[in-house]
């Protein structure tokens, strides 16, 4: 690996491992009075936080990097892992850089976690972000517009200044650039997965959780340029797979590496979904808050926490497989994740109708044993290659 790329990878790794949010502390310390707002996965309108001059920080739990000592006392064994590691991070003061927390409507666990936060941290700004499940502009759209405006009022209070439409429009543009850079990264990975292995691209996307979007966009561009200059990454024949179920609690990085070592190139995924935002750019002209509201209705990425009003449940997954020329799908969901696991039988049905092979396993963010997964993914990879050669 060339030194420039190695340096970038090291930086992304450091950000990934930084459970103390040092980068956020640095950003805040650089200018007096700066504020940062945390947000759980999946979707919050980060543009509005940015427009108020605050840093949106996406919180993805503690992964496999922290030991859970007190967090387990808050959750029964049959609840997924991310809320317990998130509580652990907060009560061990690793979230001291955050001036508030947003809890987007994703599932009942995150919903209830918002109330737990209100009780545990009464001096902190805490808000549940109730996204609409009705996608008609005059119904769900009006509701969401109201929610967005009220979020903006909250943010203005937090920063003691008005947040104007121009600020919002500017932030939308900043995030449009960021989304374009992410889309480019995904396109390049799909075209040349051996040059852009997911275990690496993941780190660069994940850096967007703590970096200001302008800086993140720049980092993504530096990374893609550096990889294109790389000469050592030879084409390697592996199977092309899409992974699904990873939109909230994140798989450990070692799991992504395991899949690659087992012969699977991940060519599309729903990792870190909240950092992608939408399938396309958000309109800039006109009322920017309304544009953001409409974007959620019309450009939102289909996922388990979003109602599918049409009869084509699973169509987006099938389309992704076709678009990325994938040979199979790996359902890779956190244990006890109701949305992901309830979605699975419907998505499987859609894949089977389309004749797309699939396999499935569960993980926790702190899973440490990958032997069984490696074997299963290896067998799957071999079988789909045989299948596509047949």
């Amino acid at each position, binding site marked *: 690996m060339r030194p420039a790329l190695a340096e970038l990878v090291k930086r992304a790794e450091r950000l990934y491992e930084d459970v103390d949010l040092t980068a956020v502390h640095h950003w805040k310390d650089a200018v007096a009075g700066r504020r940062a707002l945390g947000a759980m996965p999946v979707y919050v309108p980060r543009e509005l936080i940015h427009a108020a001059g605050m840093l949106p920080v996406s919180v993805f739990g503690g992964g496999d990097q922290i030991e859970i000592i007190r967090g387990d006392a808050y959750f*029964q064994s049959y609840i997924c892992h991310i*809320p317990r590691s998130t509580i652990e991070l907060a009560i061990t003061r690793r979230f001291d850089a955050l001036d508030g927390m947003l809890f987007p409507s994703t599932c009942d666990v995150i919903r209830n976690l918002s109330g737990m936060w209100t*009780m545990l941290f009464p001096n902190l700004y805490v808000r549940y972000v109730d996204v609409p499940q009705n996608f008609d502009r005059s119904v769900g759209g009006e509701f969401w517009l109201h929610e967005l405006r009220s979020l903006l009022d909250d943010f203005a209070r937090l920063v003691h200044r008005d947040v104007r439409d121009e600020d919002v429009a500017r932030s939308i543009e900043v995030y449009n650039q960021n989304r374009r850079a992410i889309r480019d990264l995904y396109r390049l990975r799909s075209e040349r997965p051996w040059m852009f292995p997911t275990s690496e691209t993941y780190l660069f996307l994940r850096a967007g959780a703590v970096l200001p979007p302008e800086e993140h966009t720049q980092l993504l561009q530096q990374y893609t340029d550096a990889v294109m200059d790389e000469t050592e990454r030879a084409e390697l024949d592996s199977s092309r797979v899409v992974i699904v179920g990873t939109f909230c609690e994140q798989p450990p990085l070692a799991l992504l590496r395991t899949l690659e070592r087992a012969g699977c190139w991940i060519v599309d995924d729903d990792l870190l979904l909240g950092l992608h935002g939408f399938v396309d750019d958000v309109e800039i002209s006109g009322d920017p808050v309304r544009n953001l509201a409409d974007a959620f209705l019309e450009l939102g990425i289909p996922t388990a926490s979003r109602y599918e009003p049409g009869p084509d449940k699973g169509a987006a997954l099938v389309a992704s497989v076709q678009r990325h020329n994938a040979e199979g799908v790996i359902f890779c969901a956190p244990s006890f994740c*109701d949305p992901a696991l309830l979605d*699975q039988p419907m998505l499987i049905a859609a894949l089977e109708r389309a004749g797309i092979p699939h396999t499935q396993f569960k993980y926790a963010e702190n899973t440490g044993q990958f032997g069984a997964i490696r074997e299963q993914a290896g067998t799957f990879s071999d079988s789909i290659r045989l299948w596509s050669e047949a």
Partner: protein
Amino acid sequence: MKPATRRGQAPAAAADVHKEDSMVLQKRLIAEHYDALSRARDEGKKIVYTFVPGNLTELIESFDMLPVLPEINALQSGMRKLSGGYISEAEKAGHSEDVCTYVKCDIGMLKKGNVGPTGKKLPEPDLLLLSYTGCFTFMKWFELLRQEYDCPVAMLHVPYQADGRIHPHQVDYVVQQLRSEVIPKMEEVTGRTYDEERLRKSLERSAAAEEDFVAVLESARNVPSPIDAYFGGVYYIGPIFTAFRGTQAGVDYYRTLRTEVEARVREGLGPITPDGVLERERFRLVIEGPPNWTSFREFWKMFYEENVVVVASSYTKVGGLYDRGFRHDASRPLETLAEYCMGCYTNLGLPSRVELLERYVRDYKADGFLINSVKSCNSFSAGQLLILRQLEERTGIPGAFIETDLVDPRYFSAA
């Protein structure tokens, strides 16, 4: 509170148990409903599948449709010891062992021919009315059912009361969905037009029944309590949480029940249990969380054998917080339905849930509280360990925490 008696002293012998009029009436109501469901096709009545929390029973009735409530099927399958088989059936078909067993019990029952509690096949839905109130799983449940039936789906997204208040724009949002999504689909399915007058009449009957229902719940403030507000409570909520709110039969049931309960108060009688009247109330308890249905009787017995009476519970509020003052208001028919949907217990933020339970402990002079944490239900369960701590701190009385499941027999052990 009366002095404690010998532990383990059973209530009056089972032979003495006489069926109260309200029990007979409820049995008849349920039987008639299932009968009506079995005749629905012949009589040209349309069937709506919908959920218990935040249900739109009055609106359904105003279109002359009949509701089927999958959760009720699931809990009845649990009580009839059929749920274990249904759940394995669903798991065999690819449903995860980790998810809500109500969903799997329903899917398993469907795969086994959709035979209802009376042994007759339930009619297929003409409309899936997905009211997303208080639980995210509902949304997935009906996405799953939609794959099985060829009928329209009406989605009603009910915003969450995170801060414990209902905001005007949330009411507008629900009303708009009723107008643009739910009512048009009901009109399309039934060929009738929306009849607001008929809806108002129904809402008036709801409010009358709600008044009597609250009197029944609040009778548990008496010492001794004339009712068990959890194990007995699940029977009392039956009609009002399901197909009978807004009907004259529902009004009659709650009037009869209230009369009986008031008579018990006058006579200083305790609750009726499956083994007779509990005569010496020893310990007053508040319970948070749904019951276990597969071992419901066994579970109840553990309490009444120790002369423990549940005086208030949150489960009996999943279909509305009438005791906190909500009444259906016929003068604002759609708005009242919206507020009803939003006000159900599991649609409340955790701080509001803690406040409510704390109030129950005080108002009902409880000696302790119990959290029955069910594996299936993240909506109830996520955060319950913090609820336990908060309640202990705020009330100074001891709390206990147990884990079971709703309808999965693998998760019940008396130990």
